[in-house]
């Protein structure tokens, strides 16, 4: 049962990543692309968690934590750049 659930979830997350790439490609404005990139960070964290479940190891959760932090910081930095034209004033 766990394997069926794992592969169903894997298919759903990969479909979500494909939809994010679609929005990243056609996004009409800059914040749309930024939102798609932010969602791609979160979906890649989900993919890393599923990889850890599949390989039965906990090695990759540090990288998930790193991706979460860097994704948030880069989103805030690009938002500040779009808002003020400068990141650190």
């Amino acid at each position, binding site marked *: *049962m*766990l394997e*069926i*659930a*794992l592969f*169903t*979830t*894997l*298919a*759903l*997350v990969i*479909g*979500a*990543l494909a*939809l*994010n790439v*679609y*929005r990243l490609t056609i996004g009409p*404005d*800059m*914040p*749309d692309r*930024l*939102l*798609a990139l*932010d*969602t791609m960070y*979160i*979906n890649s*964290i*989900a993919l890393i*968690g*599923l990889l*850890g*479940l599949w390989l*039965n190891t*906990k090695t990759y*959760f*540090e990288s*998930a*934590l790193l991706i*979460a*932090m860097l994704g*948030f910081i880069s*989103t*805030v930095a690009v*938002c*500040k750049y*779009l*808002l*003020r034209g400068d990141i650190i*004033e």
Partner: protein
Amino acid sequence: MTLYPLLEGVIAFLLVAGGAFIFIGSLGMAHLGDFYMRLHGPTKATTLGIGCMLVASMLYFWGTEGKPDIQEMLITLFLFITAPVSAHLLAKTGLHLRLKHMEKTEGSPVELRPEEVGEKPVPHPDRGHG
């Protein structure tokens, strides 16, 4: 692998629910009409989905190894704190760049200061105010 059947069912349900929430959030972002609608999908549904999935991962490793680990809860807590902040900044950026919204949208952000919607240029702090 020694997992109780009930625990295995709970883990499978949480995994599939998390995947479904992530997919629905991304589908909303790809499908909806304007930027302010698209902001709703990833910031709510996807955050709940990744929370479900990481809790399922924590329960799985708790069941197989016998002791709980705080690392997945740490990632979940961090994402639950940072997702509203980045959503707020993205909405502010959309208002500042005056992105188009749909015709049916009612109301307007009256409480915003003029410089937040790009009415007049904000003085740079290095050159003094006014």
